[in-house]
């Protein structure tokens, strides 16, 4: 059984990749921007002087309070849509790189079950995205503390962190379909195009009654980006779970049965 070797190999590939560090930098930027907007809101004089940026900051936080609940709500909403995009990038990279770098033919001729490669990559993608989520949670705490925001309670922070982690899990379940597109099309670009398409789809269905049944819309609804007060039933979570299972099955099916003619 060489499954631990498969996972170790994937981790080694990631450690040396620039993309890994770029995703962490992107999430750092996201938290920093949230902090910047909040700082602007706390300093309305400067917001007025900066014009457009001040208005944007106002828009981002709904022109409301500048406290911990506002910052955490904003980060959770960003974690929904931003998480979907980021998770798609992570999965597209991990699965697409073998084809883009011409290594799929070497990998698939190894004396290791091909499903092990798929599962190994899924585990490593999940671990990567989980670390990114923990990273933004930590950053949010630092940003909020630096700004001296009021209204922080342990319960509030933990609830927001738990919601972000659950959103990350939901985003990841949806992103496994991106893995399938990556192996089918043998590269990065089509899966990234697919993830943009799913965001459009999420937005379109978000305005209809079908939203709670469309995987990508469900993530947005749960994050609160579509507005407060939307509750999701178990059916929506079942859709997310089914998306993960279908994505995994399609990816394994391709890697095991499709001809590799790269």
């Amino acid at each position, binding site marked *: 059984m*060489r499954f631990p070797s498969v996972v*170790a190999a994937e981790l080694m*590939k990631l450690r*040396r990749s620039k993309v890994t560090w770029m995703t962490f930098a992107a999430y750092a930027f996201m938290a920093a921007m949230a902090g910047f907007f909040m700082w602007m809101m706390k300093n309305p004089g400067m917001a007025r002087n900066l014009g457009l940026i001040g208005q944007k900051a106002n828009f981002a936080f709904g022109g409301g309070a500048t406290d911990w609940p506002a910052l955490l709500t904003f980060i959770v909403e960003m974690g929904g849509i931003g998480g979907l995009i980021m998770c798609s990038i992570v999965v597209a990279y991990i699965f697409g790189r073998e084809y883009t*770098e011409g290594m799929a033919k*070497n990998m698939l001729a190894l*004396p*290791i*079950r091909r499903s092990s490669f798929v599962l190994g990559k899924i585990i490593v993608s999940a671990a990567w995205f989980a670390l990114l989520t923990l990273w933004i949670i930590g950053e949010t705490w630092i940003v909020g503390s630096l700004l001296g925001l009021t209204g922080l309670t342990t319960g509030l922070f933990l609830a927001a962190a738990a919601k972000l982690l659950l959103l990350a899990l939901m985003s990841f379940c949806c992103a496994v379909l991106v893995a399938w597109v990556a192996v089918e099309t043998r590269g990065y670009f089509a899966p990234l195009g697919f993830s943009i398409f799913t965001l459009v789809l999420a937005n379109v269905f978000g305005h209809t009654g079908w939203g709670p049944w469309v995987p990508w819309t469900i993530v947005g609804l749960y994050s609160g980006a579509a507005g407060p007060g939307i509750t999701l039933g178990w059916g929506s979570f079942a859709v997310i779970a089914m998306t993960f299972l279908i994505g995994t099955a399609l990816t394994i099916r391709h890697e095991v049965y499709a001809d*590799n003619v790269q």
Partner: protein
Amino acid sequence: MTSAISAQGLSKSYGPVKAVVDVDLDVRRGEIYGFLGRNGAGKTTTIRMLLGLVRPSAGSISILGSSLGDDCKAVLSRIGYLVESAAAYPNLTVRENLHIQRRLMGAPPAAVDEVIELLKLGEYVNRRAGRLSLGNKQRLSLARALVQSPELLILDEPANGLDPAGIVEIRALLRRLADVQGVTIFMSSHLLDEVEHLADRVGIVNAGRLVEQVDYNELRDNGRLAIEIEVDDVALAERILRNELGLVEVSRSGDACLRISDRTAKPAPIARALVGAGVALERLDPMEEDLERHFMRLTGGES
């Protein structure tokens, strides 16, 4: 002893395109087998089928005594391979690339240093693969193929990207692996010179079909096409060749030239007979069919 590679009726079609048609391969253990064909002849598709990367449309494959379908993973663990082009994880160093392969193949840690030394990659061990020259990338690919000390090496165009010194070096390495360690080597190439220098046997593939599988020494010994001579008296020379030497396939190929196409004809007796009869022999040219001519004839490159 069983064959290292045995394929029967191997075919692969992509829709209406027949990439490989009814190929029967027999590669003996310990030999270097040159799989020769033009670009697009079906070499890489055949190699992909041997490695389980592509499913045959028809036919069966047995490698090192086991059917590829029955126990694919056990068979693959005994094979080193290089498919089509040199590739490596560009962000990883040479050593890291080899380390990944070693782990996945279940080879001991010392194997990495051994192949680094074998392929003379010591200078580049800490260099990222993306910054290697094409030739060194090819060396890295070969090193990866050798990391688990395979019994069978399947190499697709192993000389690609190597400089002349590198080609000679890799050729010597492959010869040594076959002669000393008994490794069977199946190598595809479109470079006649490469196959000519290395292969014990040659399989020539054209338009997806294996048109010939021949022992290279046999080809060298029996491959002569004709002897051409230039003399002052063509009529007398023809008479001597037919009547005294009993040669049948003698034809005029010019005013003063004769072509002897009998495979049994030898240059020395012809020269002796003609000179002895007073014929002035201006030129005697044994036109040998080398691998190049043989290949061109079989693949339709020469009328």
